[in-house]
């Protein structure tokens, strides 16, 4: 199974990438996605998560072809 991981704004800059592709087997939470794509980095404070463009919690399960996004607090308007 494969999921697309995206990073935005200051998080994208600090990670140094805007996207990852994660290939995995078995059940995986958003938090697992973070650990597998950023093994050297603790789960960051105040980072928001969306799966398929809807906000979710870090314990949300992901499935094949999901798009998972990590980003800092939003500052539009």
């Amino acid at each position, binding site marked *: 199974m494969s999921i697309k991981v995206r990073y*935005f*704004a200051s998080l994208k800059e600090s990670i140094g990438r805007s996207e990852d592709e994660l290939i995995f087997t078995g059940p995986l939470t958003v938090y697992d996605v973070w650990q597998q794509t950023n093994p050297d980095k603790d789960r960051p404070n105040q980072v928001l998560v969306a799966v398929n463009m809807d906000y979710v919690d870090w314990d949300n399960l992901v499935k094949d072809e999901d798009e998972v996004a990590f980003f800092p607090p939003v*500052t*539009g*308007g």
Partner: protein
Amino acid sequence: MAVTICTNPFNPYEVLQAYEASLLQSLGSIGATSLFIGTMRDFNEGDHVKGMTLEYYPGMTEKQLDKILIDAQNQWALIDSLVVHRVGDIFPKEPIVLVAVWSSHRGDAFDACRFIMEALKSKAPFWKKELLVNQQERWVAKNSDGYQSS
């Protein structure tokens, strides 16, 4: 109901006149229009700001804004609502966001307009990076609470 993300400067008053032309049929039942325009200031957190880049998440931003407008339509008796938001490079005095709500009664229009604006500020994925006069760049860390006076 409409959500527009624009990469170029927009004139909110021209946008409103064009949009209201599409409301002609319900115009007779509109008693209240509540509007909010957010504009880029040349000063933030003690520093002169020269410009700003607004990043967004294409697809998610529109999806979240649609949800916010539907939420508002479900909570108040609205006739129509509109959000226009800039992205990309923005300069002081340029409009960043326009929120418009049309309803029969003013209580609904005022409440819904403010609700939409606060929801946008906390949920719509946009991120501001400021360019200071000394050429330094910085990400805006967090939006303030708009229900507080300054």
